[in-house]
């Protein structure tokens, strides 16, 4: 991306997202913590455009004036006040509601706890953390089809390590969201960090996932 110049031709595809509004929802509750408001601004604009029922709960979030012009916004002064707000909101939400949280892990956990206390099922609770997951330690990976053994350094992704030795691997988002880089996991136990349930298919997301501590992975590459 950084090597591109004005006028360069690029191949583009339509965007993908793991944090989209659920089309069948009767009501959307958007919970924004700090700059976590970013994707929820798009949600709010979308709901306002289509006339969907929605409300925003915000704590420490910027762009409140933009949100207020789109629909109802309730602002909590701090995290504890937010916890007090959440209970009544999810407890009285109409049938077919969904809640979407973007913010630090603590806020996401607080929303999940409030939803659980109101007997919501997990499929109605959505979140996008904006804190990067901590990097893991070094490990080794065996590329079965290429007959290579590659050492992945701490702070290096599996995908970067595969690139470094010149083995071609698919990729797109580099955030464990799009599923493009999913590769068969043949051996070893992985520390799965993707958002597309690669583990359920016996695969691994090269861009974000690593080996579990002390494990060596074998992948179908």
């Amino acid at each position, binding site marked *: 991306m950084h090597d591109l110049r004005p006028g360069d031709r690029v191949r583009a595809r339509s965007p993908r997202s793991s944090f989209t509004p659920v089309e069948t929802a*009767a009501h959307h509750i958007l919970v924004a913590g700090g700059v976590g408001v970013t994707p929820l601004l798009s949600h709010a604009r979308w709901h306002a455009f289509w006339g969907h029922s929605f409300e925003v709960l915000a704590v420490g979030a910027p762009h409140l004036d933009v949100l207020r012009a789109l629909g109802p916004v309730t602002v909590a002064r701090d995290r504890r006040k937010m916890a007090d707000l959440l209970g009544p909101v*999810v407890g009285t*939400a*109409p*049938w*077919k509601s969904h809640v979407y949280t973007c913010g630090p892990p603590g806020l996401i956990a607080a929303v999940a706890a409030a939803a659980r206390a*109101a*007997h*919501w*099922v997990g499929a109605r609770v959505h979140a996008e953390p904006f804190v990067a997951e901590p990097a893991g330690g070094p490990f080794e990976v065996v590329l079965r089809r290429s007959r290579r053994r590659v050492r992945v350094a701490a702070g290096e992704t599996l995908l970067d390590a595969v690139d470094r030795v010149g083995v071609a691997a698919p990729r797109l988002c580099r955030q464990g969201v799009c599923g493009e880089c999913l590769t068969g996991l043949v051996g070893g136990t992985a520390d799965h960090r993707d958002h597309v349930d690669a583990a359920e298919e016996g695969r691994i997301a090269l861009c974000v996932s690593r080996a579990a501590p002390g494990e060596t992975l074998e992948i179908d590459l």
Partner: protein
Amino acid sequence: MRTVPGVDLAPCLELDAAAVDPDDVGPTLARLTTGWRLRIVGPEREVLLLRAAALAHGALDEEITTEITTEVLGTGVRTVYCAACHHPFPTTGTAARCPGCGTDLDVADHVSRRHGAFLGVPR
């Protein structure tokens, strides 16, 4: 409503599949709040159709439990979904002629949650 001492159970709406019209389930569900569960009880065919209607009105699999009161599963009246013309119709047994298009169908074991019906495969 069922209670279990010491357990905070989700509120649950019990629906008698033989008595509730699937077309009426939308307004019924709209009166609930999120967090409610549905428990659908009755004969196999009516339970499947009511369950399909609840799903169409936004209920999730995780929110629905069912209890079939038919004595032997698969022996009563089943809704068959014709693979040729997509016409759903009630029948018994494992073979039927579709009243929509006249195709002779074998009734497969495959049941659709969305249609609440068994697949009718042209012979």
